[in-house]
């Protein structure tokens, strides 16, 4: 029997501290597992920082499979004959070419071409989309709807409970749960199965860069799904996952985190503290060939000028995470050229990795990070050479294989 607080105390014996946040549809299950009741608030819901040991949880995404409750994610429905045109004019990718039953990562920008947020768009039918994003965005969507009379936007966050199942055994686990043919789903595919008394939607998506899926279900069936996942999952090494381990996994995968790697434009006060997609290495999803979209003119100008900052993937000398490090052009730290946005020691890559935002004209030259770390309270400063990486730090072949190999 795994050691959980539930073995020691019954749930009703745990002192309840009201904190204004709601439990997600899985709370009945996640709460007893949360050893230190270590929660953070996410869109008004309690989200586990970690359940017992964030390292163990992190390793499950790389070695077995981890289960993250992503129900607090914002989910919006765009439905109607104008949904495609409306979204296409809002985001930077070509929504007219987005196939039904697939998911696409996307971003949306202000008129000035600064990133408001990123998210994933699920095309559910010709005229129905679900957009998921970490931050609330309804106000912007309402603005972006002005002039499109035939699209309804609803906040459907409460209509769906969601679990991300991520790691090498995730496909095998889903097969064992009876989702026949799930192995044929390609990355970003959406498949639906009859499940319990209703339906479950499974997308081959996730935020860990590994093989993984996200399960979307009516909240009334959330607990049954959880129980199914964990009882079937025992032999697949299934492990509940908190946000801290996710933060590590996403950095290895090279994904961005709002308020960490970029500052959402609508919440930015000072000029230059928000970001363009080019600065965030997202030029691959800015489609200048699709016709007009919001921010296009500004982005084209920025691209042509080519002077923008650049978010770089850095492999940093040594093994001390370069958190909050300032970046320099020279080892003597004379010329400051940028800063690190996210950093960690990556156990799977066995490298000291980071994302760093660097002024455009220095991005191709040498880069040094000024790293501070503590040894029994004593501060140590080290200047570490950085090597630029062009590929994600962690991108195992299985993440893209269809069908993925059983592990």
């Amino acid at each position: 029997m795994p050691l959980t607080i539930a073995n020691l105390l019954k749930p009703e014996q745990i002192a309840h501290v009201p904190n204004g946040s709601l439990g997600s549809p899985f709370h009945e299950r996640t709460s007893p597992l949360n050893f230190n009741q270590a929660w953070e608030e996410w869109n008004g819901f309690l989200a586990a920082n970690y359940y017992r040991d964030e390292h163990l949880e992190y390793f499950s995404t790389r070695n077995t499979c981890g289960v993250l409750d992503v129900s607090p994610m914002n989910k919006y429905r765009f439905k109607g004959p104008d949904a495609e045109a409306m979204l296409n004019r809002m985001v930077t990718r070509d929504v007219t070419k987005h196939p039904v039953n697939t998911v696409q990562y996307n971003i949306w920008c202000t008129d000035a071409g600064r990133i408001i947020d990123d998210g994933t768009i699920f095309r559910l039918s010709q005229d129905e989309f679900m957009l998921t994003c970490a931050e609330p965005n309804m106000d912007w969507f309402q603005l972006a709807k002005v002039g499109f009379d035939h699209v309804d936007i609803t906040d459907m966050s409460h209509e769906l409970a969601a679990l991300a199942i991520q790691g090498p055994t995730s496909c095998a686990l889903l097969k064992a749960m009876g989702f026949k043919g799930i192995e044929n789903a390609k990355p970003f595919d959406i498949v639906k199965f009859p499940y319990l008394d209703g339906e479950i939607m499974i997308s081959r998506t996730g935020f860990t860069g590994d093989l993984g899926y996200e399960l979307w279900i009516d909240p009334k069936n959330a607990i049954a799904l959880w129980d199914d996942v964990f009882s079937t999952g025992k032999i697949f090494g299934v492990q509940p996952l908190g946000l801290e381990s996710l933060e590590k996994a996403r950095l290895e995968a090279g994904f961005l985190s709002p308020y960490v790697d970029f500052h959402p434009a609508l919440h930015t006060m000072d000029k230059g503290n928000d970001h363009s997609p080019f600065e965030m290495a997202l030029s691959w999803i800015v489609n200048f060939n699709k016709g007009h979209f919001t921010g296009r003119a500004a982005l084209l100008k920025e691209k042509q000028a080519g002077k923008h900052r650049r978010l770089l993937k850095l492999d940093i000398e040594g093994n001390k995470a370069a958190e909050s490090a300032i970046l320099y052009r020279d080892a003597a730290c004379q010329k400051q050229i940028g800063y690190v946005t996210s950093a960690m020691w990556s156990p799977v890559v066995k490298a000291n990795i980071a994302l760093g935002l660097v002024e455009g004209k220095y991005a191709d030259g040498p880069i040094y990070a000024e790293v501070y770390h503590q040894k029994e309270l004593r501060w140590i400063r080290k200047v570490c050479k950085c090597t630029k990486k062009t590929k994600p730090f962690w991108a195992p072949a299985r993440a893209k294989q269809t069908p993925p190999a059983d592990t």
Partner: protein
Amino acid sequence: MNNKHYDAIIIGGGHNGLACAGYLAKAGKKVLVLEAAEQLGGLGATREFAPGFKASVAHTLPQLTNKLVNDLQLRKHGFELAANSLATVALSPAGQHITIANGEVQGASAADAESYQAYKRLLGRFADTMDATWHKTPPVMTDGGFKDASTLGMFGLKVRSLGKTDMREFMRMIFLPAQDMMDEFFETPLLKAALSWDYNVGNKLAPRSPNNAVLNQLLKMSGDMSGNGELPLPKGGVGGLINALAKSAKAYGAEIRTGSPVASVIVQDMQATGVSLENGESISANHIISNTDPKTSFFKLLGVQHLDVEFTQRINRLRMNGLVSKVHLALNAEPKFTGLNKANGRIIIAPTMQYIENAFDQAKYKGLGEDLALEVIVPSLHDNSLAEAGKHVVSIQVQYTPYDIAGGWDAHRSTLLENVIKTLEQYAPDIRSQIVASELLTPVDLEQQFRVTGGHWHHGEFAIDAWWMNRPAYGASQYKSPVAGFYNCGAGSHPGGGIMGAAGANAANYILKEEK
């Protein structure tokens, strides 16, 4: 597809569209004007509203300039004034009317007559200062400063040349409500009410409203046909001017088609390249210039899919709801107003500013006041082309009649007309029996018949937040729009509404300059 290709297609043959066409054609451009209605002129068209009786929605020309008339040789093409300037007459219920004519006030207190001179001098200087702005493309703000800053500089110089005292007064007064201005200069309530009229009419403003009343007043003083602040009356209604504008544009080579509503602007590769007509025909041109209001231009004709989100919202937020209705009465005899020899001036019916404010208060809450404020003109006393000899046309602006009246206009039309006639009867007791026909144009009627969103006088509120480099909104203030090849030239663009042709002329000049 019409295989002819034009340098410019102008959507709408209102007076601004025709002025724009005239200037472009004069510069050698191949121009096509497409007007939806069977008749040219938009709110300036003179129409037969009852058999044998004609009127135009706009009736006087305080904003028209000699420059436009001369540039486009409008006199040669038949433009004439029926009266150089109408006196303004403030009707008193007791028959003690006040007249403002030839720069003098008569019938108010001696102190007021004197103050009027100081008032006139100051306003004249302010109007002169604003002249630096009306007939030029506004500057735009850029990251580091301004582009096309010469008009900004000119305006600055003009303000400075007012001298310290007047400049300070200008800066102090420019955002004042009409009532503060009136209270500062005058004591006679009737005079104050009449003089406050031009500050407010056409906008969502009443005597106590701040923001843009003074600006509105100065815009009304922008013309110079018979001097600053005078009130010329065109021959044949404003349609007389329209005919001349159309003839002039044609003489310069422009083609004009009526009965040709445009359904949409054709955009290819993010560039406006032509228009589709409602009949399915499409025609191509290098420049597509819209004389319609900004909402129609951007939402209906262009389509927001070609625009950015924040820009779209700025257009969306424009205040488009008109508050002025127009009533045209056909009379079988000359109307007689108690205590007036001849009703040949511009008659204001509003005993006090409070009276006007009360009507506004009702309208603010989507209601209709019983006591309405009116501007009444009998143009047929100066012009025999509008009705048969001995018969007359009464042209009335009515305030305040909200576009979005509670319950809809169908429920209020007859009440409104009755209230107008009842109000008139108090001053012209026989008028009801003289009426042989009438026409009521509420803001909703104006919207439907003249294709102006909200039926708004200025194609959208003329206000500090929608003025000069913000008119109609930043991103489109220089006649061009965010979509290459698409322009605006109507009253929704700088300098605003009123019959002056400046938006049309400025747009044409901007386009011609851009080509160089």
